[in-house]
């Protein structure tokens, strides 16, 4: 009997995993074939260039340079090309698909124990078919980072700290967001070692002591970034060349007032010349400016995270919760959220909460709570709201996907 239940649950997991991996990839391929142009534009070209030719720098920090890109995605691309004997373009598409698939399965493994596996699958579908989800398939470093975060969360829950620290190191050289994983790793390592006592002083002392003993783990996590800074110094004479090139490239810094201004200024149709965004009216009858949508998504996700923080922690989603908090702090500190919509794909409390609510709704239906009319109306309202938000999100995924495949930069 027990074996039957285990087999059944394994089958459900495998079928859900197949759906969450195949469906978005297939959909992206349909979009791609439909448009008939290469999906590997802009930054994807830089990552490919680094994999093909290594870093090139002419000493002029103000011209666009490959040193403004971290090497993680290019290293992975190079590896995929060697293993599968493909050309760089094909290897780049394959690396996006592989990293997306591994990342999704990792998230599924992590979420499976916290909710029904179908609801866990819905989280990934909500995340993937979000407006900026296209960046998980177009050869950018986002897909590899998604994979690294998924694996990190799974291994951290299993308390495999050595593997986690290596993932953090590789995460930092893949996307700057990787730095968020460092304090999460440290906190999860130190937390169980803190002795519980009545005196605050003892707790603080214990906390500091356990954090101090976690330093070797931090060193291990920083080994790869350390090696990268030494490499930068040896070859370019500047250990911070990445930060310098990135700042010179993007130029402006963003501020919180600037964020709110973008958020609320919906009426003036601000089409940015510098961001190469053109009017989208050609594609669908309605349009949403990506820059503004990024601010809106950021705000809604922050509010969702705050409102449902208790529910997320209660459902043993603390690691994911802390990652989401980290992303918010990172976005605010660097000012990246108003500039780059694609950064919002790592901020997904809406997706998790929607799946959790659907999970609760399912359990509530199974329990036969339809007898109460008010409860039924509430349940239906929640369901309709989630479906509406998903459909809106999905339509923007299609719209932005078509735009990007047509050569319009969406971020």
């Amino acid at each position, binding site marked *: 009997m027990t074996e039957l239940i285990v087999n059944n649950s394994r089958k459900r997991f495998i079928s859900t995993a197949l759906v969450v991996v195949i469906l978005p990839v297939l959909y992206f391929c349909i979009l791609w074939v439909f448009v008939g142009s290469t999906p590997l534009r802009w930054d994807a070209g830089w990552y490919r260039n680094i994999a093909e030719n290594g870093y090139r720098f002419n000493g002029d920090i103000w011209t666009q340079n490959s040193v403004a890109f971290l090497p993680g995605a290019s290293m992975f691309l190079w590896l995929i090309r060697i293993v599968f004997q493909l050309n760089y373009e094909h290897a780049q598409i394959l690396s996006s698909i592989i990293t997306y698939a591994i990342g999704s399965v990792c998230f599924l493994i992590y979420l499976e124990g916290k909710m029904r596996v179908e609801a866990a699958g819905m989280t990934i579908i909500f995340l993937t078919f979000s407006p900026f989800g296209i960046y998980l398939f177009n050869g950018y470093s986002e897909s590899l980072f998604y994979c690294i975060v998924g694996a990190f969360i799974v291994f951290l829950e299993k308390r495999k700290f050595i593997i986690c620290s290596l993932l953090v190191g590789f995460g930092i050289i893949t996307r700057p967001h990787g730095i968020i994983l460092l304090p999460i790793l440290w906190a999860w390592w130190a937390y169980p070692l803190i002795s519980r006592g009545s005196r605050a002083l003892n707790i603080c002392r214990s906390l500091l002591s356990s954090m101090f003993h976690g*330093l*070797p783990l931090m060193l291990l996590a920083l080994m790869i970034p*350390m090696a990268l800074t030494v490499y930068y110094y040896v070859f370019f004479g500047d250990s911070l060349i990445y930060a310098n090139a990135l700042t*010179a490239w993007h130029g402006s810094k963003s501020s919180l007032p600037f964020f709110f201004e973008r958020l609320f200024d919906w009426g003036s149709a601000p089409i940015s010349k510098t961001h190469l965004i053109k009017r989208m009216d050609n594609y669908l009858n309605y349009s949403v400016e990506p820059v503004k949508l990024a601010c809106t998504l950021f705000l809604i996700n922050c509010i969702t995270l705050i409102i449902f923080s208790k529910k997320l922690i209660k459902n043993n989603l603390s690691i994911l919760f802390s990652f989401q908090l980290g992303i918010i702090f990172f976005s605010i500190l660097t000012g990246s959220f108003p500039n780059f919509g694609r950064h919002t794909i790592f901020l997904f409390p809406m997706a998790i909460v929607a799946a959790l609510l659907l999970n609760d709704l399912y359990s509530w239906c199974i329990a036969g709570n339809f007898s109460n009319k008010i409860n039924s109306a509430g349940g239906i309202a929640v369901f309709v709201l989630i479906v509406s938000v998903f459909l809106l999100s999905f339509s923007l995924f299609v719209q932005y996907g078509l735009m990007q495949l047509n050569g319009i930069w969406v971020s």
Partner: protein
Amino acid sequence: MKPVFSLLIILIWVFFVAETGKKPIEYFEEKSTVLMPNEIVDWMNKDRKLYMAGFSRAEPNFRWSKDEEQHICFKPVENIHQKNNVKISMSILMPNISIGKDFYVGEKGKLEQRACSSVACSVEFDVPVSGSDGRILCAYINAPSILKVNGDYRNLGYKLISFKYSIE
């Protein structure tokens, strides 16, 4: 591995990065050529003789100031005397809403008040050579960005047209 040893390695690395990481102005110093007195550099700054912070990218006829504070640095002639002042001249277009409003120019920490009485405006001010090593000189401008142009999400200040300096 001992925590103390790990801490030591991390601290050495932090020190290494702090010591070996360049500042953007150092790249400018390495790559830029000398700006001669009375040589006019337009908003395009094609030869990158100016290091500009707080400005937008070049547009067809001008460059917007877009931050509260802007500064423009350049490599002056080598024989510039430590006692000299350099006179900065900037040609700008001030939007109507900012005409008559105060803004501040000069050396860092010692800004002087100015105001434009018309759209086309020439701003002149002194920057002392003493206090710097004379290799790079910087002019500071503090003019708020308050203009909203329809179809543009940025806060804009004034339009920079050209820049030059002369030795007094």
